[in-house]
């Protein structure tokens, strides 16, 4: 297979799963159970992605104060829970991370 065809094949296998449900929207009705299941997709997948970039670092579980990603995530979770504000959550989370990483003499 030439590289050109390889790209076309890769495009097909990434595009089709993204497009198929969109293409069928309005044409088929999903069963109620599936609709309910899909309502959990954002929480389920995004939480897993966050975990793999905070609790887990470079494929190892890292539960200590050197894990700045984890500390930033926990602080962000608290800010989000109490303030319900996205912008504030991101700014405080990034600030905590930056302070821990580039200002180590303070902590």
């Amino acid at each position: 297979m030439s590289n050109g065809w390889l790209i076309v094949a890769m495009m097909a296998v990434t595009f089709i799963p993204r497009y198929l449900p969109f293409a069928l929207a309005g044409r088929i009705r999903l069963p109620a159970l599936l609709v309910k299941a899909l309502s959990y997709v954002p929480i389920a997948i995004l939480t897993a992605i966050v975990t793999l970039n905070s609790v887990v670092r470079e494929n190892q579980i890292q539960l200590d104060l050197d894990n700045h990603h984890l500390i930033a995530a926990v602080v962000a979770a608290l800010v989000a829970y109490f303030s319900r504000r996205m912008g504030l959550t991101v700014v405080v989370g990034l600030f905590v991370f930056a302070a821990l990483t580039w200002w180590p003499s303070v902590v």
Partner: protein
Amino acid sequence: MASYRENLKAFASGAWDSLPVIVAAVPFGILYGALAVAGGLSETLTMAMSLLVFAGSSQFIAVTLMTAAVAAPVIVFTVFIVNLRHMLYSATLMTQMQNYPQWVRLPLAFWLTDETFAVINNKLNQSPSDRYFVWYYFGSAVAMYSNWQLCTWVGFNMGQGIPDLGSWGLEVAMVVAFVGIVVTSLHRPSHWLCAGVAVVCAVVTRDWPHQTGLLVSGILAILAGLLVDWTMGEESENV
């Protein structure tokens, strides 16, 4: 005229809300370009992959496999597996898409990524029947896409001259944005259990190849949420 302005406003707001996840994607785009150079891929091939495939983790894996001269069908199948979770994203957005023509759905589907899904899903939680939702989606998608092309190009052409961006930990911007999105959408006990199961499963399956652990963790977390709904019934939904 008024609607044109509203569309543009929604587009800009989609792009703006994507800023944290775009920043987080910068080192990955540059690293992808740099890896492609190191692996001996041509600039055309490297850019074509970003322009036509547009799937960060798949492109990484594809470059690694191509460099190692792995057979093409294996590469294609691996890319397919890595991206399968996008089908869940797409299915989640079906209701929003049913009123738009296919020519609108087509580019939006092509541009569906973890990042854009997180941002637009958050928008839907805040304002479920937003008339300008599709423009907001376009804004997020076009911003992500342009940034990805630019970073790929920079990585390919100047990757060697840039200090190791991977070690800056910029993905923290995505982490805190996703945390904000998830935490503000935890309304019921079933949501909390779903998130808890996702954490545990993601940790347990962290070594699984090609992001299969991510997909399986997601599915188990969804089932955990459903289980709470079944056992607690409608009650839990009104909390």
